[in-house]
């Protein structure tokens, strides 16, 4: 197998606060192939967004990448200088954020915010950059792009602003786009439009994508592969089909059962008991064991990722729900 586009190995991003060390990302490993859509799924505080920031090199103090390797095209990003890393950001890897109302600078016109993105990485004239920007707006389906280039962000609706952000991400033809819940703040019908555009764009440009979300239904329709995160660790990974139809980890199973589905209207959902743990003072061992029906004494030791073989399927559990044992 050739070198994957992105390889993350043993990534640990910790926050050093007054109250103690918060292990936001705690030993995360995965790979993304060229043109692949990877869904990174988890609930709030699971470290999924911080994984994205870590890859981008955008972790702010008191946070720090403590250990681990991030390789893009076989090139170790941690060895890069700050300037080389800046050259990479917005160029080879682009990122889109959750809240479209906040990601564009309110006092700068759209053309300024687009042109500067191109000129930060390429030696091109203003006119050429403007032409490229215009094309990107057309690409993401924004009507009357010439007029829109002259506008300020507040003149756009939420969905339109997210399209502009996507257009900006596409400007330098990145190899990888990290999308951090870009449709969560949007209405269902607008979310559908954005998903449609993203699907089309990745297909057209061949860019790979990491789609970070808490919403399993988005991943179900969009991603090729899924990584499920819990308390800073990946607990299960595999193809979307495998993970969603035959989950191995009890947490994934619980998550799937928590989603109201067809039928059984008005009856109780099967739920995961207890609360999402705080990653601040996590006890050693499997972070899920206090909410898990299968937990044994063995689980006080942190399980390693197992079975990372066929189709990259793996689970971090001593009692995986293999075929037959699933409830």
């Amino acid at each position: 197998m050739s070198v994957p586009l992105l390889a993350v190995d043993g990534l640990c991003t910790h926050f050093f606060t007054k109250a103690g060390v918060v292990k936001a990302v705690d030993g995360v490993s995965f790979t993304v192939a060229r043109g692949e859509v990877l869904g990174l799924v988890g609930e709030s505080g699971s470290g999924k967004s911080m994984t994205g920031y870590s890859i981008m090199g955008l972790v702010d103090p008191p946070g720090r990448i403590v250990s681990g390797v991030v390789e893009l095209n076989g090139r170790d990003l941690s060895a890069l200088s700050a300037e080389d890393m800046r050259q990479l950001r917005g160029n080879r890897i682009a990122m889109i954020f959750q809240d479209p109302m906040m990601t564009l600078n309110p006092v700068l016109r759209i053309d300024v915010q687009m042109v500067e993105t191109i000129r930060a990485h390429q030696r091109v004239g203003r006119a050429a950059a403007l032409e490229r920007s215009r094309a990107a707006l057309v690409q993401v389906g924004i009507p009357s792009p010439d007029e829109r280039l002259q506008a300020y962000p507040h003149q756009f609706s939420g969905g339109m602003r997210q399209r502009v952000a996507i257009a900006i991400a596409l400007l330098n033809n990145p190899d990888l786009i990290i999308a951090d819940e870009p449709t969560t703040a949007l209405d269902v019908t607008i979310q559908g439009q954005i998903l449609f555009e993203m699907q089309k764009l990745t297909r057209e440009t061949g860019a790979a994508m990491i789609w970070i979300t808490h919403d399993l239904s988005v991943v179900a329709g969009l991603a090729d592969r899924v990584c499920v995160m819990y308390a800073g660790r990946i607990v299960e990974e595999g193809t979307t089909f495998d993970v969603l139809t035959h989950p191995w980890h009890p947490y994934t199973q619980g998550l799937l059962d928590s989603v109201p589905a067809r039928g059984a209207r008005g009856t109780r959902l099967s739920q995961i008991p207890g609360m999402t743990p705080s990653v601040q003072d996590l006890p050693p061992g499997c972070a899920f064991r206090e909410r898990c029906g299968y937990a044994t004494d063995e689980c006080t030791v942190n399980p390693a990722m197992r079975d990372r073989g066929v189709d990259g399927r793996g689970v971090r559990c001593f009692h995986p729900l293999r075929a037959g044992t699933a409830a």
Partner: protein
Amino acid sequence: MLVFIIRRSLQSVVVLFAMSLLVFVGVYAIGNPIDILINPQADQIDRERAIAALGLDKPLWSQYLTFLTGALSGNLGRSFVHSTPALGLILERMPATMELALTAMLFAIVLGIPLGLWAGLKPNGIAGRMIMTGSILGFSLPTFWVGLMLIMVFSVELGWLPSNGRGPTVLLFGLVPVSFLSVEGWRHLLMPATNLALFNVALLIRLTRSGAHEALLQDYVKFARAKGLTNARIIGVHVLRNILIPVVTVIGLQFGALIAFAIVTESVFAWPGMGKLLIDSIGVLDRPVIVAYLLVIVTIFIVINLIVDVLYSALDPRVRLTELKG
């Protein structure tokens, strides 16, 4: 835009009217206007004549109308002490105050914004912490006392700078006397301007710092970093453009405050401006001058507020659009 201008003008008219009413009530109604408006040294016949001439035997509302028409035509009475029109006296002193206030504002901008930006970008560095502690000190130092201490050190002990007056002035454009065009003038200007600027340096440091601090936490800065922009561009364009809005607004409003606070500095350094004149006039109960000062300064404030509003809407596209439409 039309509605915007109408709204501002209406507000200005209301403020002017309210202030004129306040000044009138204060000077004419509460005190005894005869004592206030007529020179105490005048004899009985002069008094009678003056009462009739000023219409003080008429009902209050008619007195107010007389006062208002007088004010509108620029007639604010004559100074008892100087025996010249009060308004002329004020206008004569205005350049000195304006020069002082403008120089102080310049000092404040040149020092305050860079220091504040530094403290905002590196809040946990030693320099950042020192700037912030220093700004609390600048905030806390009583202006008049700092003035005294400056005189004590630089005039009395070291003998470097003169302690009072404006020094020789040069006519700017052939009509406005200013100090800043000569070295001797600068020696006179330096201490009062520093003194007056102190508070505003601290204010601008704090404002710029909190603005920069705030902006750095915003998603648009994170997005700008994700786009791979250089730090220089992120700070110089994305952050600065956003904090410029409150900073420009405050600079405008503070300019008015500087003119008012010049009263104190002018008193300490015997700077011959409007403020010194006001204090002297209060001391000798030269009421027409007080009234003239108040109305002049209210007008200055209204003009400043108007300029600030226009600047604000020019800087913030969100305001610009809604205001222009609405």
